[in-house]
């Protein structure tokens, strides 16, 4: 708790000292973060399985917005395309093909709620303490990041970041990329074998 208070105090002073403190980005962050946390809590507590999938959309969309704030445009658009356009649709599809009653279902939770709350809180405290201890009030600095990628001109930096992702995938990380293709092929065949009726 004291760590958190110290962090908040540091945030307050940083805001006055550091002239690059970006107010609009922080407002967007705060609003999106509140929406995401509320939606994530609803996903794990709601009594209607389709509502859970729809709350999940807000969580995943919010993650996409966070990627945009972190200047990862390509990852953000991939998040919208794959997570919202495909994964959530698949989940909704699976739910509606099996059992999706309107209204409240009572059999969605087991009786491990105290264990779940305990595990969640312990993890939250441990991770929160570790993060505040190690990173304190470190600032994100996109200029240093861009110049490390050789993108000093702000006009071309955004395109360069997308290009840098491409260079990464097809350069340094080519072998993992090929592994992913094999994995996707295996998953495709596996899903067909599991789902076919014969």
């Amino acid at each position, binding site marked *: 708790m004291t760590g958190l208070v110290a962090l908040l105090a540091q945030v307050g002073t940083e805001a006055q000292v550091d002239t690059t403190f970006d107010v609009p980005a922080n407002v967007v962050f705060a609003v999106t973060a509140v929406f995401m946390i509320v939606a994530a809590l609803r996903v794990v507590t709601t009594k209607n399985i389709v509502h859970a999938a729809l709350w999940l959309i807000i969580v995943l969309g919010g993650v996409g917005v966070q990627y945009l704030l972190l200047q990862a445009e390509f990852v953000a658009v991939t998040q919208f395309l794959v997570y919202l356009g495909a994964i959530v649709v698949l989940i*909704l*599809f699976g739910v509606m093909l099996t059992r999706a009653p309107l209204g409240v279902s009572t059999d969605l939770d087991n009786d491990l709620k105290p264990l779940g709350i305990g595990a969640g809180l312990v993890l939250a405290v441990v991770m929160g303490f570790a993060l505040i201890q190690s990173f304190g009030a470190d600032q994100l600095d996109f200029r240093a990041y861009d110049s490390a990628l050789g993108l000093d001109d702000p006009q071309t930096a955004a395109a360069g970041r997308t290009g840098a992702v491409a260079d990464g995938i097809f350069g340094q990380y080519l072998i993992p990329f090929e592994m992913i293709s094999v994995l996707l092929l295996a998953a495709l065949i596996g899903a067909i074998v599991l789902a076919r009726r014969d």
Partner: protein
Amino acid sequence: MSSTVLLGLELAYWQQTAIRVLVGLTALLLLTGGVVYLYLFKFVSFMQSRLGPMEAGPFGSLQLLAEVGKWLQKEDIAPDRADKFIFGLAPAVVLASTFLMFVVIPAGPNAVIADLHTGIYFALAVSSLSVIGVLMAGWASANKYSLMGALRAGGQLIAYELPLILSVVGVVIMAGSLNLQDIVAAQANGAIFGWDGIGNPFILSQFVGFVIFMIAVQAELTQSPFDMPIAESELVAGYQVEYSGIKFLVYFIAEFATAVAFAAIASTLFLGGWDLPASWGIGDGAMHVIGPINISIKAVLLVGVVFWARFSLPRFREDQLQALAWKVLIPLSLANIVLTSIFKVAF
């Protein structure tokens, strides 16, 4: 970035964006209305040897306004057992997905709401969000025909999302960019074996991609011959069956605005977009005026192709539709990508 001079006025970034959004929205609704009048009212009438609407305005040109007025007066009914909130939210999700597609489509050297570096990728990503609205509508209506229609729509839209995206990859390889302005410039500045009289519209080198793209667009729009999700004779009207009044109007607008959006994307990717070939030597100043007209004409003509197919072809069976996507279109578009890459490296 902070301010640009437009017509002698200094405008802040948010003012520019507001103007762009307003102008873009007006143009979108006008184009959609024009397309509905031109094709849904008149074109189909002439194909069926009748006159179509003639009473409201000259040649029935104000018929659409009369129809909108009729829908706005109707009572907005929701089924008693429906999930009312999601039932009301679903049309908004579909409409938002449509409007977001227009954000990245350029209509001139500077006439684009947001010139994203991942432009075409973004447009395809947001176009895939409409299926969430369809599934929400089908489930929340508390009607088994709605749910079956939504499940058919879900399966169909997921299946045709793949050829839609894969057919665009060929163009992206040719242009070397995901940005739609770069793709337009690549076509205007290109040359066919050294001859630059008409630039290099990608429909010539990517004809297979163009055909796959238009078939996939037809399926994404759930237009006949791919209209199983809203098949009247089997499912009444699919996921739209419980909707009335303004919510049905929203679905109607979204359907035709999406047709315009996909046609505008197709004309940008394959027909050169707003730009004229660079060898014609028309300056940027004139292109501010010619560009929007140019892409509007191309888009309206491509919507005509979509409607031509819609009114001419009978409906597929569900298994034929899935077989066409997975066994024909996806392998063809993958082969197209491989061949395009080989030719790109070879030449």
